[in-house]
């Protein structure tokens, strides 16, 4: 049963990465997560939002959104952008793959999301944008 929901939208500026993970942490606090669970959620949301900011729009300005849904024993976050999209999702999800090899990106973003959340689904269309939906059970 849905207990709560929220949606927040913000500019694709890197200082909003911190804002987004703080919002995610505040939203889930009602389920009384452990410190570890909270860290895992903050990290996974930070990875998804950072991807949207770095890769989503290249150098254009754009909007990133984070939607949250709180259930009795789980939380779901969907991070969306309306940017360039991911041409090959399977490849993007491989550990150490980076779409920006000229920078110092580690290529671990999706691997960390998958390790810290119970499910990660990626929907993307080139030229239209990307949506990452993540669910995590909260032990109670």
């Amino acid at each position, binding site marked *: 049963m849905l207990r709560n929901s929220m949606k927040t939208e913000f500019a694709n500026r890197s200082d909003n*990465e*911190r804002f987004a993970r703080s919002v995610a942490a505040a939203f889930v606090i009602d389920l009384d997560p452990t410190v*570890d669970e909270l860290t895992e959620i903050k*990290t996974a949301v*930070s*990875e998804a939002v950072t991807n949207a900011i770095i890769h989503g729009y290249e150098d254009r300005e754009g909007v990133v959104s984070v939607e949250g849904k709180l259930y009795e024993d789980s939380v779901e976050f969907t991070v969306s952008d309306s940017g360039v999209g991911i041409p090959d999702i399977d490849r993007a999800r491989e550990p150490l793959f980076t779409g920006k090899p000229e920078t110092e990106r*580690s290529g671990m973003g999706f*691997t*960390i999301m998958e390790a810290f959340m119970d499910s990660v689904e990626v929907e993307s269309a080139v030229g239209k944008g990307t949506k990452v939906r993540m669910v995590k059970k909260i032990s109670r």
Partner: protein
Amino acid sequence: MELIFYGKYRALVARLNGELDHHIADSVREEIDRELERTGAVNVAFDFRHVTFMDSSGIGVVMGRYRKVTALGGRVAVFGASEAVKRIMRMSGLERFTVIADKLEDCFEEVAADA
């Protein structure tokens, strides 16, 4: 961030504070690289004792400094990281090419004083 050069280890120690994410990563990288050149340090140690949050952007910064100093025969070390941060480091295979220690004294051999 505070940057301190330890002559006895020929190491630049980067004392990080707070949250290490993509937003912070660029300035951390630039400042370290500038100090590496200025001090002539060959080794880099990241002091994670006061880091409260890190995502994969932090891994990128450590890996990037590794690539830079190995060319000079130097090493990279990380010390004082929380369990949460160490977990991300292990997941990324960082321990294969960096020293992960509890304290600075365990990171590098001391360089013999000039004769």
